[in-house]
């Protein structure tokens, strides 16, 4: 048995890590990510969607999908920028090259757009090298179709 000197102090610090602030840290992280996360999405244009029953989910990563809005008068919007149809090829070609030829163009056309404009758009996309195209539609229910 050892003898203790009269002036030696006993350490009173706890050996446990305090866990009471863990909840606050979790909530702070949660709130930080909720506030700071921004999804790169373009604004929706006011179009009337075409409807299709056989429409399937686009099988491609979100970053490889380029939304191309086409309004009834033939105005094109890509990434919130307005373009004319004959500019599409010049706009899409660099984006296609950036994506390592993996780009899928989702055409969001107004249902009343004359097909002539849609055909011009397809020609522009082909000349930019883009061949994978999706005609984006809303899902149509069978009931709706029968009523039509």
């Amino acid at each position, binding site marked *: 048995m050892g003898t203790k000197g009269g002036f030696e102090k006993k350490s009173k610090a706890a050996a446990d890590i305090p866990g009471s602030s863990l*909840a606050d840290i*979790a909530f702070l992280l949660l709130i930080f990510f909720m506030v700071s996360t921004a999804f790169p999405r373009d604004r929706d244009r006011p179009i009337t969607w075409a409807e*299709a029953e056989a429409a*399937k989910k686009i099988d491609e990563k979100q970053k490889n999908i380029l939304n191309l809005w086409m309004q009834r008068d033939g105005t094109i919007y890509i990434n919130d920028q307005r373009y004319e149809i004959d500019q599409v090829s010049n706009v899409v070609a660099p984006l296609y090259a950036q994506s390592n030829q993996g780009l899928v163009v989702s055409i969001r056309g107004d249902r009343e757009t004359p097909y*002539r404009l849609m055909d011009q758009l397809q020609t522009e996309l082909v000349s930019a*090298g883009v061949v*994978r195209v999706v005609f984006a539609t809303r899902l149509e229910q069978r009931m709706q179709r029968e009523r039509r």
Partner: protein
Amino acid sequence: MLGMKKQRVSGEVPVASTADIAFLLLIFFLTSTNFPKDNGLAVVLPESSETVEVSQKNILHLVIQASGIVEVKWGESPQAQRMRADRIEGLWRQEVAANPDLIAAVETHPDAPYRYMIDVLDALHAANAERISLQVLEM
């Protein structure tokens, strides 16, 4: 009073499990969140240099008029059958069973609204058609 026990229940709400609740919520939302994906009809356009000669007997012409009526023509035959877009699904299944090499040539009138083409394309997709060519009707 004598014999009465002193109550020893703590007045505080226990907070030790708040962290667990926060993490559970976090994990629940992380796993259950799914971002809405677009629906659509996928088409592969032909490359600009790509021209393929196809025998007329392997082509089913679907001519969409500006009114939305579809005229169906078989190869070079001058006869046309007029029908609504919703009948094309059945027609395609029937035709492709007879000729598996059949190609659907969808020719749309330049003034026809885009939705009529979508209706026909929808019917073809519903019938699992794979060989589809989209053209504008030459006037």
